[in-house]
């Protein structure tokens, strides 16, 4: 749940990048960290293993400016995608306001995307949240691999697998080149802020 400070007029919003191992969650935040320097006041925090896999989370505070006189502070997190880390994944989801589900568009990752999304559904239920109600955006990442001759799932298949029931906004993206990283971020921020604005009225 977002935290609203009526005294200092600050709203803190928690957005989590979720998805299977190596799908590109950390790469999304790294790109945002490089591209939006003027909106980021501090260093990105990354709790990771030697092999650069996320161990607990990445954290990046992102300043959004004001809405209705309230300062909006967006807190971006990633979860660790490796299967064995579900306990920590759950901890990061605590109090989440909006989610970007990053799917790996590589053909061989098809099953892993589906399993990860199903687990997100269960993990949210443990907090009495619903995947059908929480602001959510789909990102189909690594589409750049097509040009390198690596088999990538067609968007229609990804949509069928992951978004046929949810029907949330989606983007093809390449976190490594930055393609649609900002578009994904803008979309999840606007969906999340709209849902929080109702509380400010």
């Amino acid at each position, binding site marked *: 749940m977002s935290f609203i400070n009526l005294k200092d007029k600050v709203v803190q919003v928690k957005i989590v990048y979720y998805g299977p191992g190596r799908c590109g969650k950390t790469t999304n935040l790294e790109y945002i960290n490089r591209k939006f320097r003027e909106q980021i006041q501090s*260093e990105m925090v990354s709790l990771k293993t030697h092999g650069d896999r996320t161990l607990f989370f990445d954290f990046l505070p992102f300043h959004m400016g004001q809405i209705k006189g309230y300062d909006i502070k967006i807190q971006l997190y990633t979860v660790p995608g490796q299967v064995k880390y579900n306990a920590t994944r759950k901890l990061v989801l605590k109090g989440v306001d909006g989610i970007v589900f990053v799917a790996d568009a590589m053909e061989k990752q098809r099953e892993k995307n589906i399993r990860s999304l199903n687990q997100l559904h269960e993990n949210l239920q443990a907090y009495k949240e619903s995947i059908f109600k929480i602001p959510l955006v789909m990102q189909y990442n690594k589409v750049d691999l097509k040009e390198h001759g690596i088999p990538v799932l067609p968007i229609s298949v990804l949509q069928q697998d992951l978004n046929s029931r949810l029907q949330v906004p989606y983007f093809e993206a390449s976190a490594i080149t930055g393609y649609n990283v900002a578009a994904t971020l803008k979309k999840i921020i606007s969906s999340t802020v709209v849902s929080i604005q109702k509380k400010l009225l």
Partner: protein
Amino acid sequence: MNYGIVSQEQLEAIEEILSQKLIKLGVDCAIIIDMAGNIITVKDNSKSKYDIYSFAALAAGNFATVDAMAKLVGETEFSLLFHKGQDSNIHFSKIDDELLLITMFGRDISLGFLRLNVVEAIEQIQKVWDRQE
């Protein structure tokens, strides 16, 4: 409890408690965060400069991790969480299921004395919180 929104009066009352009970003692910094890593309020002696948003995210993660470990070994919780450094120490205390009080203090304050005051501060904060329900 609607902990997501806090009124101006509530926050002022809580800040006053932190000032009176902790900052006056010589504590460098007292922060209240929620378990999701949001900052509720910060009081410091204006000498220290921490990146409090990153600090809150890490502190919530740290506390949550220890809490999960406690459950694994069959404890309901480890009520005291304390990190000791060369010049500064960090003390974590649960206010309720959603809120944490974190204090940072130097060598000149003993842990026992600090804990006593933290307990009193928490009792007062709980009263302010309850009034709002």
